[in-house]
């Protein structure tokens, strides 16, 4: 059974590991941001956009590795003058960590690996629940879709 708060709990554990970590985002392989947490409650970034880019960059790097036949991608690290972005695989998703420039890279890699395995498990449960949603949820989804259809005609 998927616990809706499980993602937030794991992402929060990650963000607490190093004071330099500013944001942690979980995205799927299609660019959808599933969950995110920030160190500061007000951190003015467009999370959907960051998630879409993180997922695409990770998938593009994987594709590059496949083309070059250099094995499985473990982590993508992007270093900027004032910060770093790490992205690693976690099952059907991608875990993205945004940090300040001065952070313990070894620790972050370790945490991402460890918590990534846990996130992968939760993600599997989350996606399995979606696939076999109870009738009530399916009805709600259908209502949402019908309402979107009606709104669309009014655009």
């Amino acid at each position, binding site marked *: 059974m998927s616990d*809706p708060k499980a*993602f*937030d709990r794991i992402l929060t554990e990650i963000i607490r590991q190093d004071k330099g970590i500013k944001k942690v985002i979980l995205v*799927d*392989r*299609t*660019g*959808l*941001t*599933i*969950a995110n947490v920030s160190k500061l409650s007000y951190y003015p970034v*467009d999370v*959907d*956009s960051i998630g*879409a*880019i993180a997922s*695409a960059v990770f*998938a*593009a790097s994987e*594709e*590059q590795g496949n*083309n070059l036949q250099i094995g499985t991608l473990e982590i993508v690290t992007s270093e900027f003058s004032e910060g770093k972005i790490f992205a690693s695989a976690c099952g059907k998703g991608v875990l993205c960590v945004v940090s300040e420039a001065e952070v313990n890279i070894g620790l972050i890699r370790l945490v991402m690996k460890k918590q990534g395995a846990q996130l992968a498990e939760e993600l599997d449960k989350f996606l399995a629940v*979606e696939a076999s949603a109870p009738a009530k949820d399916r009805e709600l*989804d*259908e209502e*949402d*879709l*019908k*309402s*979107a*259809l009606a*709104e*669309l*005609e*009014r*655009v």
Partner: protein
Amino acid sequence: MRKDDKGRIHLKLVFYGPSLGGKTTALRWLYGKVEGLQKGEFTAIEDETNRTLFFDYVPMSAGGRVLFDVFTVAGQKRHRHQRKVVLQGTDGILFVADSAPDQRDENMESFEELKLFLGDSLGREVPIVVMLNKRDLPNRMSRDEMLDLLGLGGNVPIYETIAVQGVGVKRAFQAIAREVILKRMYK
């Protein structure tokens, strides 16, 4: 069906087609001119001349708990692998064909590539709507010629568009969004 942790339904739409065919122009027109859609930030990964390098992305909603994550792809041939990445998990395709006669081969190659990437799911699990763009060109290919070129029969919705003016763009977008929703409701 893709959902976020707030339970909102996300549907991924991708503008696909040959280079300089009008994919980004069409998305920018939707973003800037269509008031009934709620839109997030416009994200573009492009070069200095505004040619798309990877993708453009805008989240859109007609209201409620259904969101459309709308992407374009980079059309230039060398960006083939990026296109494959952007197509992952797509729920619907807006194919933007270029009506210029000198783009005949580019249209065909792009459509063949799309069929290769999506396989049998194209037109079945993944609905497609075709925009015949640049219909204001004086020497444009005829509609029938373009449909023959792409090997399209009568069961794919076709819209004649002029993306720079927005002609037909909203209707094409509504059509693919509608197709995708109906596919989710009745599959």
